[in-house]
Structures are given as structure tokens and as C-alpha cells.
């Protein structure tokens, strides 16, 4: 399981998740400006940001996105606006999409389990749309971007804990 971390607070959540056995090993690596990058488990090296795909990774692939920018953003409870961290990641997405002009993508919106099914579907759609609108504002062609909401149907992290819920309230950029 890959978890991208963008802030110290989130890092704590990440450690808690590791302790509870829901996440693989992984580290947090800052790169100064731009998106904070995480190296996914098993790669043994930091991701590379703007300089194209990391070695051994197909440019424009989901793996490339995960390693060079991170493929997800997180939302506060019952909120659909982008946090400053999420905004930075979305800027990274926009840059990555500019570098990979042939790629189209779907933005998934997700909610935590502490809501009702239908409302959470609407909430997830609003989260996905918030990310899509931010990408369009960054100059990404809207025709390259679709959205889908899963509401609370597809949690990433298991367990009925605040930490798990924080990581499940997410938007994910999925390369089509």
C-alpha cells in the first residue's frame, strides 16, 4: 500500500497506520519546493519530481505519477475544498500532465465510512470536481479529465479510526 504524505501531521497518521499494520514500509522525503515526495515501498530511492520518470518506470504511467508526484490528496471531514497540501499536489499533477500530454486521467473522489452512502457519493463527486477544477485552472485540458465518485465504497486504509478515515477522505488521480 502506498501512502503519500504531505505534512508532519499526516506523517504521524502514517506512522499510526504502519503500527496498526495497514500500511507497508515507506519513508517521507522532502524536496524543498514543489510537491513533497514520498518513495513508495520497495523502490529504495527517492522519487524524482520534474525531471521526468524515475529510472525503470514507464513515463506517463500510474507508477510514474505515484513516484514523481503522488497520486492522491486528502480532505478534511465533511469538507470538499483543497487543503494547501492538496493544492500543492494538484499543481504537481498539472505539471506532470503537461509533461505527459498523451495521458488522460480519471479523478476518483472518496469519503470515509462515517457518513451515509448516498450523501457520501455526492461528497466524493464534489471532491473529485474540486481537484478537476483546480487542474483546469492550471491549464489542463478538461477533455483529458473525467471524474468518478465512490463515496465510502472503496476505503484505502482499513479500520474504524480517525487515522484511517483521514486517509480515506481522498482524491486519487488515476491514469486511464
Amino acid at each position, binding site marked *: 500500500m502506498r501512502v503519500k504524505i504531505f505534512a508532519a501531521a499526516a506523517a504521524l497518521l502514517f506512522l499510526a497506520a504502519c503500527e496498526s499494520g495497514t500500511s507497508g514500509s515507506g519513508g517521507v522525503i522532502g524536496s524543498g519546493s514543489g510537491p513533497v515526495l514520498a518513495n513508495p515501498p520497495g523502490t529504495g530511492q527517492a522519487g524524482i519530481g520534474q525531471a521526468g520518470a524515475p529510472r525503470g518506470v514507464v513515463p506517463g504511467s500510474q507508477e510514474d505519477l505515484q513516484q514523481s508526484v503522488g497520486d492522491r490528496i486528502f480532505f478534511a471531514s465533511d469538507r470538499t475544498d483543497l487543503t494547501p497540501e492538496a493544492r500543492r499536489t494538484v499543481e504537481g499533477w498539472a505539471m506532470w500532465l503537461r509533461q505527459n500530454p498523451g495521458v488522460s486521467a480519471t479523478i476518483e473522489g472518496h469519503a470515509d465510512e462515517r457518513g*451515509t452512502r448516498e450523501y457520501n*457519493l*455526492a461528497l466524493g*463527486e464534489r471532491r473529485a470536481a*474540486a481537484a478537476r477544477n483546480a487542474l483546469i485552472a492550471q491549464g489542463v485540458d478538461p477533455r483529458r479529465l473525467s471524474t468518478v465518485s465512490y463515496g465510502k*465504497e472503496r476505503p484505502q486504509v*482499513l*479500520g474504524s479510526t480517525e487515522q484511517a478515515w483521514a486517509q480515506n477522505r481522498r482524491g486519487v488521480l488515476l491514469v486511464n
Partner: protein
Amino acid sequence: MMIRTLPTLKRRTLLTAAAAAAALPSVALPGVARAQVRIDITRGRVEPLPTAVSPFFGDGADANTGRELAQVIAGNLERSGLFRPIDPRAYTNTPAQLRAAAPQFGTWRQINAAILIHGNVESTRDGRLRVEFRLWDVFGEAQMEGRVYTTVPANWRRIAHIVSDAVYKRMTGEDGYFDTRIVYVSESGPQQRRVKRLALMDQDGANHRFLTDGRELVLTPRFSPTAQEITYLAYVQAGNNPNVLRPRVYLLNIDTGQREVVGDFPGMTFAPRFSPDGNRVIMSMAQGGNTDIHAMDLRTRQQQRVTNHPSINTSPSYSPDGRQIVFNSDRGGTQQLYTMTASGENVQRISFGTGRYATPVWSPRGDLIAFTKQTEGEFFIGVMRPDGQGERLLTRAFLVEGPTWAPNGRVLMYFRQGASDSRGQGGNPRLYSIDLTGYNEREMLTPADGSDPAWSPLLP
């Protein structure tokens, strides 16, 4: 997939006291004494009525059907919480004796039976099943009900449900809800890749079968007023890429297995429900971060936008007369319940308690709206009047969600889910029913985990 609904039953009222005498000439029936026994279901806690359900009399192979009929009837009545079936080993007349003569009421009184149900089952020469039943007031020594039904043998369980409904109605004055089905979402697999299938069963769990194969994520099935169609949400692959899914509201015909997408909407459609006349499906459509309520006329295919507000507007449910809609919106800042006319006018907020309100469902009787409420880290199922007054919470848990009404508006079903641990264990959703009074909460047994139940109307 082909699923056949069994043919409609022929039914007629046969055995009034006078007709029964004609039918059974050798029996000296008691006079038409006014029966006194009655269950008042408007009180909170009702002491279940001691009830004898004799095996129905049958010759040869029919004897087995007679035993099973009685078991299904007793099971229905027991689950309602209003009746307490007495152990058949205590019964004081055999099925054959009850067929030949009126009950020996004194002996039934000795085992405290307040009412006695018995009957006869017979395979007719044309291959049909003929079932007659009678309901007796043991203390009043009077027949309260007597009917005969003829059907194909495969339909025998429905006869048992229809008999149960007749007993329920006679004893409570309210329509029963036993000749009904439940459609729900059967769940299996890990939470991150949960497999969800539409499943259909009788209200007592019998005749369980799957309507979808689990390859597509499906949610929130709801019956049409004829109980022949189901509207639900399915995530269907849009093209060649399995990553690109198109969540849309679908219509499934239970008889033919045919399904079609409801309407040509540019965005995700979800939260569907039929109008009470079955002519429309009302649902949410989400696009560009905005969720509004739309209706589609199934005959003209005309789409109508019902809400137009930059907020979440979802979970619409018509009043039984079709004139009003209750729905869920966060237009006031938090999730609350609102009513409006069917065309979207006169929007009124009706929920004012602490917490968030969701999934409103109008009772088939029109008198109440059931809902899910979320407050202080817990979920509740509750009811309130359509003007928002008289809120009552019936049950609470880590998660309870999605109430659905039995067609008589007296019983609710919903699903309950516990907290899960870091391996995803412990959160298994299950179906539960509860009486409107808040008593008689029971788990509805299903082969696997279950969520999103919807109760059918009485079967046609």
C-alpha cells in the same frame, strides 16, 4: 438472467361461519359469537398473543406440505413480535380431528391458546394445490376468519404468507406484510475491493437468489410499486478501459432479467426511487461538484430537474400520494431533511434536532418519515412526522443506515455495521428489522453480509 415470478394466486373468501357449516355438514359449529380477542399494536410493548398453529391436514404427500405451511405461518407470526406460537407437541386436537369437527375449545384453553389456526391442504386432480384455513377465537369459541386458496404447488410458501397476512389483519386491524420480498446488497470480500451483488429473497429469508453476478459494483436497490422492477445504482465500464466507470441508475425487470439505464444524463446518477404510481424514477445527478434532484418519466422519457441549488441535494423520496418529496440537503450548512412539492417548490427544512440527518423515506401510510441520524459519533434510525415534529429514535449503533418501510408502515428494516479493526475485521454489515414502537429488533439472516435493504410492496 431469467427469474420467473410465480403466477398470481386466485383467492376468494370462502368460509364465513355459515359457509363453513355448509362445507363441513357433520360439524356442529358454534354460533356466530362476536370475537373479542384483538391485538392493539399502537401500544409500545405488546405481550405476544399465545397462538396455536396446527399442522394443516393433508393426505399422503400433502401432509408434509401441511406441516410446512404451519411452520412458515408460525415463523411469520412469531417474528412480528405480536404472536407467541405454542409448541405443537402441546396441541390437544390432531389435524385430522380439526378437519372433522370444530375445535374442542376447552382443551385449547388449557394450553392457554388465545387463537387457533388450522386448515387443510389437498392436491387437486388438475395438479393444483388447494389450501383452506380457519382462524378461531378460542375463548370466544368463534371462527374469526376462513378462506380457501388454489395455486400451483410451487407457490405453497406464498399461501402461507397470505394466510399469515390474513391472521395479522384480523387480529390487529392493520394490513400484514408477510407476502413481500426484500431486495438488498449481498457483500463479500475485503473492504477495499468489496464485491456487491443484488439479492432477492422473501421477507422470511426463503427463496434467496442473486440478481447480479458481482462483477459490477451495485448499490441502493429499490422496488417499483408492482414489485416487478428494481431501480439501483451500478458502476458499469464505459469503454475498453476498466479504469473508466460510469455510475448510473438502472432499471432491472425481475421477470425478464432485462436492464436499462434510466435517462440520458451527463453526470453520475444515483439515489433512485420510484414514484408511488411507478411512472417516474426520481434520483440525484452529480456533475461538476453539484448534486441536484432530477425525475424521469418512464413513459415519455422526459427528464425534469427538480432542485436547482449549489449544494448537495440527494436521497429523494415521494410521499405516498406523489405530491411531495422529502430529501437530504446540506444547503443550510449541514446535512438536513427538507420537503418540497413534486415539482420542487415550497422547500421547507423539517429536521431541527442536534446532528446530521440523512436517507429520509416516506412511510407508505404517509404519517411518518424514517431517517438515518448521525450525532456524537453514533448513528440512529428514527422517525418524525412530515412536518418535522415528533422525532423518535428507534435504534442506535456504530453504524445503522438506510431504513426501508414494510408496506403496512409498522416495521422498518435497515442495516447495521460495527467498527472494524486495522485488518478490516468486525465491520460486517447485517440486515435488521424493528417495530415502529422501537421494540422487537431482529437480525434478518442472510447467506453473507448484507446492506441497503428495500422492502417490496405486498406482492400482486
